[in-house]
């Protein structure tokens, strides 16, 4: 497929068309996925996904296991291509710039589109403070004020009050829920425009889950959030928009329905969506 570099149409004054190279901080971005397909070792697993993830909103991707939600999420920040044998087609535009376009580098893209994984994975050899600053260290950026940035990021991650006296301890010393919030803080410290979350609560207990959902709501005005979840209630609680993925038998995954969360859960137009959100299958 032909990849066209879209005309420079920045949505705001702070958004240059070529977002690589300059480190634009802070402002949330919008992701347009158009005609996204994905293959693993030649097998089509995701077919023609067209989806818009609105700026400053939380978009939830729901659907049964193996329907390509996580694959789609990983395509959004170029983590898909890390897997051997993975291929893809289509365009993913961050504020109008195709992240797979010529001249775009995966490393830069991932700084603008951060990711939080299912299993909490703070770097065990680093302290809490070092973990928060890890992304900047990797990009070889020295922050103007380390301590402020650490406090700001941990506050956004909802962890500051619990760890402010033990920033020098190792990241692995925290509980599972705290580790996951540390990972969120770590992702936020590089000031991404979009934060992708791949089932961030599935390894956590209900209390930690609630804390993280609270965190998601708090950060949503600063960063666009895309979250994959298996938990219907969670999708309802945290998201503004919802996309329902489904892979029918021997078929690649597709988006069945997408729209405002109230609509998907309240009055879905597709019968399969209705069945899924009401627990009829999956």
């Amino acid at each position, binding site marked *: 497929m032909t990849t066209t570099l879209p005309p420079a149409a920045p949505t705001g004054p702070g958004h240059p068309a070529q977002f690589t190279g300059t480190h634009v901080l802070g402002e949330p971005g919008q992701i347009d996925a158009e005609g996204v397909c994905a293959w693993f070792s030649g097998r089509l697993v995701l077919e023609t996904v067209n989806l818009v993830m609105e700026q400053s909103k939380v978009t939830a991707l729901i659907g049964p296991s193996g329907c390509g939600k996580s694959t789609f999420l990983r395509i959004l920040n170029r983590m898909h291509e890390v897997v051997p044998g993975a291929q893809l087609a289509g365009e993913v535009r961050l504020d109008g710039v195709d992240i797979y376009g010529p001249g775009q580098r995966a490393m830069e893209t991932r700084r603008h589109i951060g990711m939080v994984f299912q299993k909490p994975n703070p770097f065990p050899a680093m302290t809490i403070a070092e973990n928060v600053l890890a992304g900047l260290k990797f990009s070889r950026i020295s922050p103007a004020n380390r301590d402020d940035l650490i406090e700001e990021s941990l506050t956004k991650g909802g962890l500051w009050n619990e760890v402010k006296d033990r920033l*020098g301890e190792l990241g692995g010393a925290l509980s599972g829920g705290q580790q996951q919030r540390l990972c969120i803080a770590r992702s936020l410290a590089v000031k991404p425009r979009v934060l992708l979350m791949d089932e961030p609560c599935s390894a956590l207990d209900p209390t930690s889950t609630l804390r993280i959902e609270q965190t998601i709501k708090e950060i949503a005005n600063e960063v666009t959030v895309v979250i994959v979840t298996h938990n219907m209630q969670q999708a309802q609680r945290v998201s503004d928009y919802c996309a329902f993925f489904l892979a029918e038998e021997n078929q690649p995954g597709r988006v069945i329905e997408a729209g405002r969360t109230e609509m998907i859960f309240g009055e879905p137009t597709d019968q399969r969506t209705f069945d899924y959100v009401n627990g009829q299958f999956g």
Partner: protein
Amino acid sequence: MTPDAATQTAPEGVLVRTTSASTQSFPARPTPDTGTVPSTDDTGPPAPPRPRRLPSPIRPSDFGTPDILILLAAAFSALCLVWIVFYQLTSLSGGLGFLICWYLVFLGLTWFGTAQFVERQVATDRVVAVVVVSAAMLMVGIIIFIVGWVTYKAVPTIHWSALFTKDQKVFQAADPNALSNNGVFHAIIGTFEQVMLAVLMGVPFAVATAIYLNEVRGFGSRTVRTVVTAMSGTPSVVAGVFIYSMLILTHVLNYSGFAASLALVVILLPSVTRVVEEVLRVVPSGLREASQALGAPEWRTVWSVVLPTARSGVVTAVLLGVARIVGETAPLLFTAFGSQVINWNAFSKDQGALPLVIWSDVRQAQPVLIDLAFQAAFVLMALVLILFVLARLFSRPRGRGGKRRKARPDEDDFMARIFIPVPIEESESR
């Protein structure tokens, strides 16, 4: 077999142990075995809980006086029996054969005794336990014997001031003060320099190879792994011959400590590579993904996440590698060649080494030289011991039990500085 049958078949006065508690009547148990039940009178605090005695010991550690008696009896009767059969009835001789026969009969009698007095299943269990424990004891015994023997031979003759300061330049067999005029300082210097050079040359290669095998997984990494494995089986004398024929016979190098360290690198490389590779393999892949998702390039991921996570393992691998080469003799024979005098320069002329001193001196006729050889062996063992202690210390996870003072990577960690160079960005900021 029902418990009742067991009681009937067992001989009088013998304690029958069964796993079932039904030999006692359940309802009419006057006092509970456990102390967890609080006493009825409220005057005192409730008794602290005590462990309950089980009717039959299940774990091997539940080893009571009767069990020890059975073992002692088995050992003693085996001794008597084998002595009679071995020396009196048949005219066999030899201590080792006697020992082996005694051990086998001891095992048999242990089984028989336990089966008689306890239970057949317990007997099998007991015999296996005895075999395992005696294997461990034999192992420890051999090591203690070696260390003890060398210490016993070396320490009484050591002149500490001479050992660590003098060489064997003025050695004369007739000299009555030979031991206070001669030492192994030249060999200590040689070993130290050769091993340091080998580590400096070998470890970066070994770590890089391990990273290639495990992180890059590039073209031919399976072949490389096979070659590395095969290389670890290289006889060390071949490593010496290799350097000798390639570099010394061709006059590229002369006999020198440097040539010796090259031969040692051949020994060091595969062992360190394999251990580092194993260590890198246990670093969770989620950490690599997390690092990449933060925008780190692959080299950054390896440098800042994978290696620091595996830091203690890598340091241990290096120290174990050093312990492996520090006592190698064969690669030094025709590379360092050995010397009686202090030679500080590892890059020219023959150089001594502790293993070479042991090798050459212990075969001599003069008792003084044999004493010196044992002293060299003692020093070498002490070196290896120190290395192992260091390895244990540094293989502990970082930051255990205490807070780190400052959030600065590897601030207080001089070993990491030695073995893992400072990351580029930090050396720039300094």
